[in-house]
């Protein structure tokens, strides 16, 4: 099973779940008591988890910005109307 398969479950993780697991991966890597193979696997999973979290946050931020801009645009429109 290639690394990509092993980490394909991450896409379905909630943000909190991904974040929690990332914390554990970092902890176990820092403990260093794992084999090379496990470390590589952990490292790959850590990367995938971090990317997933950033994906969640990026989406949230862009939605927020869109909403605020839309509101701004709407306000501008009504201001224009009121001028």
């Amino acid at each position, binding site marked *: 099973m290639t690394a990509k398969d092993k980490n394909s479950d991450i896409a379905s993780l909630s*943000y909190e779940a991904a*974040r929690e697991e*990332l*914390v554990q991966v*970092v902890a176990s*890597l*820092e403990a*260093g008591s794992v084999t*090379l193979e496990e*470390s*590589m696997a952990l*490292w790959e999973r*850590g*990367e995938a988890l*971090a990317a997933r*979290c*950033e994906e969640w*946050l990026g989406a*949230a*931020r862009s939605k*927020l910005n869109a*909403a*605020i801009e839309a*509101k701004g645009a709407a306000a501008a429109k009504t201001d224009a109307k009121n001028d």
Partner: protein
Amino acid sequence: MSSMSSWGGGANSGSGEGLANRADASAGAALPEDGPNPSRSNSRSEPWPISTLNAKIKGYVDKLGYIWVEGELAKVSGGNGRLFAELRDLQIENVVQVHSWNPAGLEPGLAQGDRVVALIKPEFWPKNGKLSMGIQEMRKVGLGDLLERIHRLRMQMAAEGLTQVKQPLPFLPNCIGLITGKDSDAEKDVLQNARLRWPEVNFKVVHTLVQGEKAAPQIIAAIKQLDADPEVDVIIVARGGGAFGDLLVFSDEGVVRAAAATTKPIVSAIGHENDNPVLDDVADLRASTPTDAAKRVVPDVVDERRKLGEAIARIERSMMAFVSGQESFIAQLRSRPVLANPYAFVDSLNEDVLRTRQSLRERFAVLLDQGVLTLDHLKTQVRSLSPQQTLDRGYSVVRKPDGSVISDASNVKSGQKLAIRLAKGEIDATAD
């Protein structure tokens, strides 16, 4: 119905008879004329003469006897104790001719437009086919009567439970039905104040009279019309201040019952703070003035919008804070060496491997050297033990085929196979 002009004109043949009849009627005596038998059959082939018809009508009319009625005086004429007039229904276009010869029964100073209560006796005159109402007693409806009647109506409404049911008003009305006088102050107050609070509010205004006896039916019609209108979800009845008499219509039973019967909430905004028509009791909300009605029916949407804006802004701020907080947390995790610089642990493992390999080699080298040493040593030993040098000097070693060395000639028999090892090579021989 006999028209007024013919009645009010010259000497009226019927009036004389009226006097005579009145005396008999009160006594309930039989009819003066011995009219034909009233129960005669009637058909196309046996038509009645008019006299029978009139007798029949007179019979029915006389049965009515004396009746108390209420109405509004109009077209008043006559003098020196005689009075001719019309009596109009207070709400519906109905009128009767009334007359009186007995001044005693009349309150003095009755005039056009007075609201009166009268005791009358309907009379039918067979001779001229006229129907008229003889007035026994008539007087204006005084203030006391009005108040008394309003009070009774109020009690009646309460007794029927029409004053308890208070429907809630819609928070944001889709369309407000407004019943008020045309271009009245009340109309301006309601519309202006409502629009101040909610520019997009929409109204359906129905203009009606707001005082006098024709007002009631118009108001009732307006209430029904707006109540039936699917778009309207609240109705306001508004009128500015006015004298007691002016506000009477809002204590009219018809109007009050129409208001009580609406399916939609209805707001009464009549006169000023201290005016309290019966309409107030049955309305779902009693506003003290038209302006107050606008304020209580229309929420201050401008204010609501501001609060809404603030709420949304707060939501956005807290969302932003949360997202940036999480972003820095993830960034911090990412910056941890194990993730940021994965080569670290690979390198450290790599170093372990190198180190181990290195020590492996060194150890191996040592072993190798030792091996070489022992080999040389063994080689010299072998060489020193080996007879080679002796053979080189010309000696040889004789052995039996089985390899055993022969050192005593006496042991050898003739024909014995022998193997002779020289410095270089070996010879097979047989002993002689």
